[in-house]
């Protein structure tokens, strides 16, 4: 079994267009959520979101590329370029054939669906651009990264709603650990802040009109974000041999299914996933100092997740720091675990715990140290990252400092 380490990371999200900007915002407890800009926003009842700001696709891609790259693919490529540049890795020969990419997304090319439905239904056009299908497909981003970096090994896209990118990173971790792959790119991307996407979410009545306040007694629901997070995973031996900088080690992964309800979370499903990740990592609960919570800011998730954590960690729960960075970047759905992985790396590497901002009042049903409002300096050697999806699909990763 190989040890698996992270040697590169990249992102774009509401907090910044790269990793340093994002971590800077997390350290400062800055909020990236603001008024939503999209066509027909006046017809939405939810008018806030964690949108990527000052993003002009023409600054990054040419006309031919834009014809093929949906916004979620564009985000992925930018994050992948940052991660690859940081890792210093390049793929050729046998390494390329044994390396691949696994990304998560819930909605894939939602902007492309939205724009082209408008064209044919609203504007009555009878013709759409020839590349609509390859632009909107859920594996488009994965494929374009594979082409840009010559990844010729196991590659696929996973779609498990809000757990997509944790599943993607977990599967990539297992492939490198088992020797099935030499190196893997992994992460996720989401861009569903469109009129149609927002209308669909509004219908569920779980969105907040004001702010994402995870664990706070006055929390009023989730706020959507968008963006991507991408990581380079390789074996510890390979990373050492080429003297690469190692940012963290992935040591455990577990996935469970609630088999219970299509939207309501289950305490057992979440706690089994956390226990499974610890078991896989051969770690004791006392070795975990920080949990990056799923923490959506909904009534149901936050109380269920806190109860699950207390069940798993028992008396050690009092020593844990548990925060939800969704309060800052919003819920990136299929990309959320990837962006939240950055907070885990910051905790392990820099000894800075990202806060849960927007926290206003204590909720006895969420009686944990949620690192309210202000980042904290603390040394931790082990962390968990939780992702619990609609449909009851849970994915938890365990990481250690190297």
């Amino acid at each position, binding site marked *: 079994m190989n040890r698996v380490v992270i040697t590169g990371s990249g992102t774009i999200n509401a907090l910044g267009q790269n990793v340093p900007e994002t971590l800077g915002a997390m350290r400062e407890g800055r909020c990236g959520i603001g008024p939503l800009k999209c066509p027909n926003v006046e017809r939405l009842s939810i008018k806030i979101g964690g949108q990527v700001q000052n993003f002009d696709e023409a600054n990054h891609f040419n006309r031919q590329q834009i014809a093929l790259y949906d916004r979620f693919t564009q985000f992925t490529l930018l994050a992948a370029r940052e991660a690859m540049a940081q890792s210093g890795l390049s793929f050729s020969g046998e390494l390329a054939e044994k390396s691949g990419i696994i990304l998560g997304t819930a909605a894939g090319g939602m902007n492309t669906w939205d724009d082209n439905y408008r064209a044919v239904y609203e504007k009555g056009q009878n013709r759409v651009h020839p590349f609509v299908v390859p632009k909107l497909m859920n594996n488009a981003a994965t494929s374009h990264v594979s082409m840009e970096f010559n990844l010729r090994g196991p590659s696929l896209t996973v779609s498990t709603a809000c757990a997509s990118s944790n599943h993607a990173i977990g599967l990539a971790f297992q492939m490198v650990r088992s020797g099935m792959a030499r190196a893997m790119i992994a992460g996720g991307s989401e861009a569903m802040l469109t009129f149609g996407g927002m209308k669909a979410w509004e219908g569920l009545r779980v969105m907040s009109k004001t702010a994402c306040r995870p664990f706070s007694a006055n*929390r*009023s629901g989730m706020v959507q974000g968008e963006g991507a997070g991408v990581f380079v995973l390789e074996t510890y031996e390979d990373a050492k041999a080429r003297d690469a900088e190692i940012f963290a080690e992935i040591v455990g992964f577990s996935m469970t299914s609630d088999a219970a309800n299509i*939207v*309501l979370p289950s305490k057992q499903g979440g706690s089994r996933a956390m226990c499974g990740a610890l078991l896989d990592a051969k770690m004791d609960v006392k070795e975990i100092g920080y949990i990056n919570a799923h923490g959506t800011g909904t*009534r149901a998730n936050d109380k269920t997740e806190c109860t699950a954590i207390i069940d798993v960690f028992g008396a050690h729960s009092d020593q844990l720091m548990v925060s939800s960075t969704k309060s800052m970047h919003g819920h990136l759905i299929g990309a959320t675990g990837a962006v939240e992985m950055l907070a885990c790396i910051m905790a392990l590497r820099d000894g800075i715990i990202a806060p849960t901002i927007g926290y206003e009042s204590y909720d006895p049903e969420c009686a944990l140290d949620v690192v309210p409002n202000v980042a904290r300096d603390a040394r931790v050697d082990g962390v968990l990252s939780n992702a619990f999806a609609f449909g009851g699909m849970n994915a938890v990763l365990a990481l250690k400092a190297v």
Partner: protein
Amino acid sequence: MSVQKKVIQIIADQGLIDVADVTLASTLDELGINSLGVVESIFSLEEEFDIEVPFNSNAPADGDFDISSVASIVLAVEKLVAEQA
């Protein structure tokens, strides 16, 4: 049909029960309507009466739309319909 009759019909359809089993004093919980059912019922009310119901399942008490009983729902719908007119 009165607002009350229509509301009771919608709730009965949601709970897969007979309209005769829905009383004004009933709570949605008693009628077997869970949180997903509440959201679906509110959608049906909005469609039936062409109203916008302020309801967030994370803060049910915040929206000035009282769902604590069938009677309170009828009152809240009547108020929204009146505002609409």
